[in-house]
């Protein structure tokens, strides 16, 4: 090679090297840090570089931590690094603004919690911090978890990095937008009725809704106490496995957290998946589903078949009742969970709730009120039992259910938030959360306008390992999850 070419390449190397850091998987980052190929400081600087360049277009954050403070922390990590560190040591992460983080604001993107600085830490957040990761921002969301588009808030909508005239999805929209546009290495989100999976599928990232009780809810502002799950969001299933390893496990401060042992989620990612059965519910692939999404998932099914997986048609006859059951129980619990915001010990007046949140509180109050309790709340809890039976039956015929995440790609800003029914219907495929079942959302293609399409794998309780394995195998043979929004290449 001519010397001047070599010189040119050598000159470009740092630029190329830097440009590629956040694209690396968490495992690659961990080993690169140990081998001193690069430092936490460099990764953090890359994040802030992106944040400064792009975030004004996306509005992914409610609070960005002070850059100098974060770099200082990164330096500390670089200096103290040992071989025995957790894989997340020294990696910058973001967390949904529903998690209590001592010393930094926790607003749930609502004016009701404006200026609230929590005096305590959420358990899951503590665990990630104890592993050595570095918080760089709290992310924008649908306030209180009430939404599927991150528009229902007092901070402005989170825009989709793939098309900023569209929403990023919700309610963990800020997470998805930031990870997709490489502003961070991973994020901690929360899924109650699709809040991790929806934005993941609309922003082309991977998100895991865990089994209810797999991760501790202590310290995360609740939306629906008996549905809420805390989960990882990242660029791949492999990354999610790593993050989940640190998050999962019983917490004495959360009486609903599971005592079930935490397996090694990364160990069996490489297992072959031939012989496994994926069920595709016919009701999901009929009316109402965007045909481009349908064909993407069908293509994915073909790819699974190439790996030796069997595809089977199954049925979820009650699918159409899911949203009603979910909303009745969900709004009932949220109406109670939001009762503590009386501006006495913290927070602002209740008149600061948005219209969407007010509607949900009212619906929940109605469903629980005297004379209506039996017909609404109690009826919905019976419906919940029916759904558990139905999904159990479906899962007795397959190892996981392959379903769309959303019936359409990311909506235009204003579409969902201004139509309450449409807004609710966006949860049609993700509202099986009353059953507690886990689900992994994966990128599986793009539509003709270049908008991301996602699919989800729903498993039996506590089968995160299997779902991550299937997801990882799919991501070995496809590269949808590696694609980056054109916005950041400029």
């Amino acid at each position, binding site marked *: 090679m001519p010397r001047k070419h070599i010189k040119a390449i050598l000159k470009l190397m740092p630029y190329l090297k830097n440009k590629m850091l956040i694209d690396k998987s968490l495992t690659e980052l961990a080993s690169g840090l140990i081998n001193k190929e690069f430092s936490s400081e460099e990764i953090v600087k890359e994040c802030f570089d992106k944040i400064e360049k792009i975030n004004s277009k996306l509005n992914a954050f409610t609070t960005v931590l002070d850059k100098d403070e974060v770099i200082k922390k990164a330096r500390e990590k670089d200096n103290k690094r040992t071989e025995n560190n957790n894989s997340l040591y020294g990696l910058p992460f973001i967390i949904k603004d529903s998690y209590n983080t001592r010393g930094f604001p926790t607003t749930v993107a609502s004016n009701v919690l404006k*200026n*609230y*600085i929590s*005096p305590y830490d959420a358990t899951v957040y503590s665990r990630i911090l104890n592993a050595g990761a570095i918080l760089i921002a709290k992310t924008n969301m649908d306030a209180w978890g009430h939404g599927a588009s991150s528009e229902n808030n007092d901070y402005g909508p989170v825009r989709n990095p793939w098309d900023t005239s569209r929403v990023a999805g919700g309610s963990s929209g800020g997470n998805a937008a930031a990870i997709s546009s490489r502003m961070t290495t991973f994020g901690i989100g929360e899924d109650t009725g699709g809040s991790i999976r929806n934005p993941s599928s609309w922003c082309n990232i991977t998100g895991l809704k865990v089994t*209810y009780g797999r991760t501790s809810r202590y310290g995360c502002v609740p939306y629906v106490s*008996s549905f809420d799950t805390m989960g990882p969001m990242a660029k791949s299933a492999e990354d999610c496995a790593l993050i989940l390893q640190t998050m999962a496990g019983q917490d*004495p401060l959360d*009486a*609903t957290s*599971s*005592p079930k042992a935490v397996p090694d989620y990364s160990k069996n990612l490489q297992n072959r998946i031939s012989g496994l059965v994926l069920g595709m519910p016919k009701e999901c692939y009929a*009316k*109402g*589903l965007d045909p*481009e999404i349908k064909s993407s998932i069908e293509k994915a099914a073909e790819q699974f078949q190439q790996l030796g997986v069997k595809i089977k048609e199954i049925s979820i006859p009650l699918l*159409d*009742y899911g*949203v*009603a059951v979910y*909303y*009745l129980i969900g709004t009932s619990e949220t109406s109670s969970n939001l*009762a503590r915001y*009386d*501006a*006495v*010990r913290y*927070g602002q007046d*209740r*008149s600061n709730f948005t*219209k969407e949140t*007010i*509607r949900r*509180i*009212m*619906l929940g*109050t*109605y469903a629980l*009120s005297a004379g209506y309790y039996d*017909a*609404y709340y109690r*009826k919905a*809890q*019976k*419906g*919940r*039992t*029916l759904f*558990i039976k139905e999904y159990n039956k479906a899962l007795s015929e397959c190892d996981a259910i392959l379903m769309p995440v959303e*019936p*359409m790609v*990311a909506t235009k800003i204003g*579409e969902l938030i201004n139509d*309450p*029914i*449409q807004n609710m*219907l*966006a949860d049609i495929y993700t509202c099986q959360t009353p*059953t*507690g079942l886990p689900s992994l959302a994966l990128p599986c293609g793009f*539509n003709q306008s270049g908008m991301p399409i996602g699919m989800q794998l729903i498993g039996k309780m506590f089968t995160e390992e299997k779902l991550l394995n299937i997801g990882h195998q799919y991501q070995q043979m496809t590269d949808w999850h590696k694609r980056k929004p054109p916005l950041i290449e400029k």
Partner: protein
Amino acid sequence: MASWNSLEVLKLLIISSMKNQKAITKDQVKHLAKLANLKLTDKELEKLLPQFTSVVDFVSKVQSLNTKNIPETSQVTGLENIFREDLIDKNRMFTQDEALSNAKKTYKGYFEVDAIFEE
């Protein structure tokens, strides 16, 4: 636009299967707002009513589920008898300052609110 159409289709299909529109009155909504400690003006209540009614109609769909002899599920963990021992958890206890740190009005260690008259 493809995305809009599919949602519209879904919506129409579901609404067409909804039964009688239940008439929710403004008084009902007023009562609910009171129960929920939400101070809504008359105007706000009027604006809320139609959307609230349609949402209630939408979720009323559950009534047509056959739940005969089906028990309710309140929790999916299957857990029972989860307790903590009767010990003081010093690590979690707040100092007075921490407890008051986010309040708008405090007075000599107390939280302060406008007078509440019990009569």
